[in-house]
């Protein structure tokens, strides 16, 4: 198929070489009872790229992200991560593998400050014993200082110094999204999953968020997989795009290729389906 050939292109649209395969989804099928959410989908995510998953409502995008994230376990298919087949895991085990995510409907601790919320993202890096933590001695103190520095670097990176001590429940939506991104970033993920990072934002907030996503990718070399509705944003920032419709893959390639793909155009303009 022509799609798989396109997916194998070795440079990004702006000419950056693509890294090796970080994650590969092989023939994934996910069912909820009788409902087939994802049907026999295969695609890969390569190191250092920004990979978008798009599709109309109900296409299976969020389910796909939840499969990558280990929250759903597909009935069929294989997930290969860093060259090894991944077994069914709990989400926290996945987090330890270096996969972090944000949520479509913000999932922050509303009563806690920005700083504390982002600090929770470092939990995978806290290994001191309970005893040491209670006494605030040795390893616990050292770890907290290190973690705080990492958190502060991210606060600086996302330009949210002014809301460091503000309870996140009081923040406007766009800033809460940024805090959530911050919490995912401090985990120092090698793969960052973003579930509709621009949903509900105004143009200015979208521009800011796009810039942060690009900066994260460039500064930290983080591989990013994102779901997004806003076509303009997706086409601007993604290196490669996979298009889903009714749980099936209908396109895969660079933004330009996807834009010219008839199946994709039909799906978005609402051509009646055969099945």
């Amino acid at each position, binding site marked *: 198929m022509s799609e798989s050939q396109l997916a194998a292109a070795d440079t990004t649209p702006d000419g950056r070489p693509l890294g090796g395969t970080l994650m590969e989804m092989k023939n994934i099928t996910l069912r909820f009872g009788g409902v087939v959410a994802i049907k026999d989908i295969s695609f890969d995510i390569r190191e250092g790229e920004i990979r978008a998953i798009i599709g109309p409502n109900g296409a299976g995008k969020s389910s796909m992200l939840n499969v990558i994230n280990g929250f759903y376990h597909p009935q069929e298919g294989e997930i290969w991560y860093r060259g090894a087949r991944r077994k069914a895991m709990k989400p926290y085990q996945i987090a330890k593998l270096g996969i972090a995510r944000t949520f479509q409907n913000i999932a922050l601790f509303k009563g806690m400050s920005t700083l504390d919320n982002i600090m929770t993202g470092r939990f995978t890096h806290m290994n001191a014993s309970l005893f040491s933590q209670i006494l605030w001695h040795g390893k616990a103190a050292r770890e907290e200082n290190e973690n705080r520095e990492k958190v*502060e670097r991210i606060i600086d990176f996302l*330009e949210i*110094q*002014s809301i460091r001590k503000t309870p996140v429940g009081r923040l406007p939506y766009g800033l809460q999204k940024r805090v959530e991104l911050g919490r995912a970033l401090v985990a120092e993920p090698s793969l960052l999953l973003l579930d509709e990072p621009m949903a509900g934002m105004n143009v200015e907030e979208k521009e800011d968020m796009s810039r942060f996503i690009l*900066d994260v990718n*460039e*500064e930290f070399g983080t591989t990013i997989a994102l779901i997004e509705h806003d076509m303009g944003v997706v086409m601007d920032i993604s290196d490669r795009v996979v298009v889903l419709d009714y749980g099936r893959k209908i396109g895969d390639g660079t933004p330009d290729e996807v834009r010219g793909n008839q199946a994709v155009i039909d799906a978005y303009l609402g051509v009646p389906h055969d099945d």
Partner: protein
Amino acid sequence: MSSHKRENAYETVPQLLARNVHQFGNNPAYRLKELGIWQSWTWAESAAEIDSMALGLVDLGLEVGDHVAIIGRNHPVLYWAMVAVQCAGGVPVPLYKDSGSEEMAFVLEHCDARFAFAEDQEQVDKIMEVAEQLPKLESLVFVDPRGLRKYGREKLRHYQDLQAAGRHARDTAAAVLEERLQAQCADTTAVMLYTSGTTGRPKGVVLSNRNVVQASKLSAEFDSLRHDDSVLAYLPMAWVGDFVFSIGQAYYTGFCVNCPESADTMQADLREIGPSYFFAPPRYFEGLLTSVQIRMEDASRLKKWLFKSAMAHARAVGPDLLDGKPVGAWDRLKYALCDYLVIGPLKNTLGMSRVRLGYTAGEAIGPDIFDFYRALGINLKQLYGQTEATVFITIQPDGEVRADTVGVPAPEVEIRIDDKDEVHYRSPGTFIEYFKNPESTASTKDPEGWVATGDAGFIEEDTGHLRIIDRAKDVGKTATGDMFAPKFVENKIKFYPDILEAVVFGADRDRCTAFINIDLTAVGNWAERNNVAYASYQELAGHPRVAEIISSHIETVNRSLAEDEMLSGCQIHRFLILHKELDPDDGEITRTRKVRRRVVEERYADLLDALYNGSENVHVETEVTYEDGRKGSISADIQLHDAVIADRVRTVESAA
């Protein structure tokens, strides 16, 4: 101090730096909040940073007299860069960091800059965008590397790389640097600052080391500034005030300059630092007072009552206590109680607990606002100055502080008022020239060194205080022959927290009218409390109930104008509320927020016509420029409103 050099031996900023290393070597010279922690550098450490930066500049090929642009927010590295450029024989030219590419291109080209320091990617991008127009620009030095990883390195380097190169080249560059430092004296140029100017292109004001050091010395002695004072540097580096406070006075007295973490955290950083010496434009004090009032509106009844009673007493006796006037023991006791319960905590919240000396300048400040801060026991004073004077023209001495004057001539400043009421001055701070602009220099500064300020004013006979009426060229006559002083009226209108900006028209017309900008914070809060729904600035500005409020303010202003025999002809007959805020990106106000009357008049010509032809409403299409230089347009239907005119109080007809 064993080897105390004579004071006048220090003629230049680099010489003052050397003295500070000797005298206060281990005292903090700069602080910067970074990663949530205040980092500090002593005078000795700062001098070492400056030294390697200066060596780097020599190594890069900086020649004596070269202009070096400095663009960014208040940051120790950029302050070091300014002094390093001076050490290396160059002239620092700080630019407003929020100027667009075109504005920057003009200045960079005009001053033939070969090198520039840019804070971050945003500033680098702006310069890159116009690089083709700037063939003389050789290289850029940046402070924050974020986002610049992929940029070519031929013309671009990190400041630490510049310093490393400088240290590496020490063997050859050190001798050159030393020679250049030796050659500097009071007459060499210290800095060039571009004035935004309410008319025309910016002009480069050349200030010598004598200007800077003398102006700093005299003003520091006037207010007895000490080396243990501290300031928060948050005003634009391109503004002469910041240069004199954060470099001139800081180097002269050896106090510490604190840089906030970001523009948004300024208020929190202010609280943490608790500066003893604080400068802010009237707009800042207005905004702060508005936010206090808004928070008090939402407070509980008991707190409201406490605040009201404490403030009433503070307003009655606070200013007198500050001025050292006699105050009864009972009132003192009551003030102490108010201080303990309300004033102290409030000052702490505002970050002003330790302010020993506060200044405001640039615009007139509302008497209510001024008195509020003085009532709190904050020694807020006014001064009058301009770039061409290295700030100081007049200044208010302790004990003679008033809202309506700008004080007496600063030390060693001479003032005279010409027959057209224009204020002229001559001082040690008087600038050398406008760069590459001998005509303007000649028309502003006469051969004897007197400089025309362009402001009309008079000296009060009994106190010797200067009072500024208006910009000299704006003062005119209405068609009916009454005196017309727009700024005077605008200031009266702007004293209302609901009103951010006002532009009054009326020269050579039969009556006066005004454009009003509402203050989004104050009016927005009112809307919230009164269940007035709005989605945008434009919608709120066009709300009929907002117009009612503004109308009542204008009515009060008219009544107070009617009592003034000279200005009763300036009453506002009609007004409208603009659908957008006046914006420096559109050229409507300067970066220091002074209204460009001509521009506003031209851009909104149709609105102005409508104010005079009696129409009820008018449809406008306005082009706006976004921060990144892109253009767009907004359209609006604007209502015009008639204001209530008060009867003139004509006491003696012959007075005017």
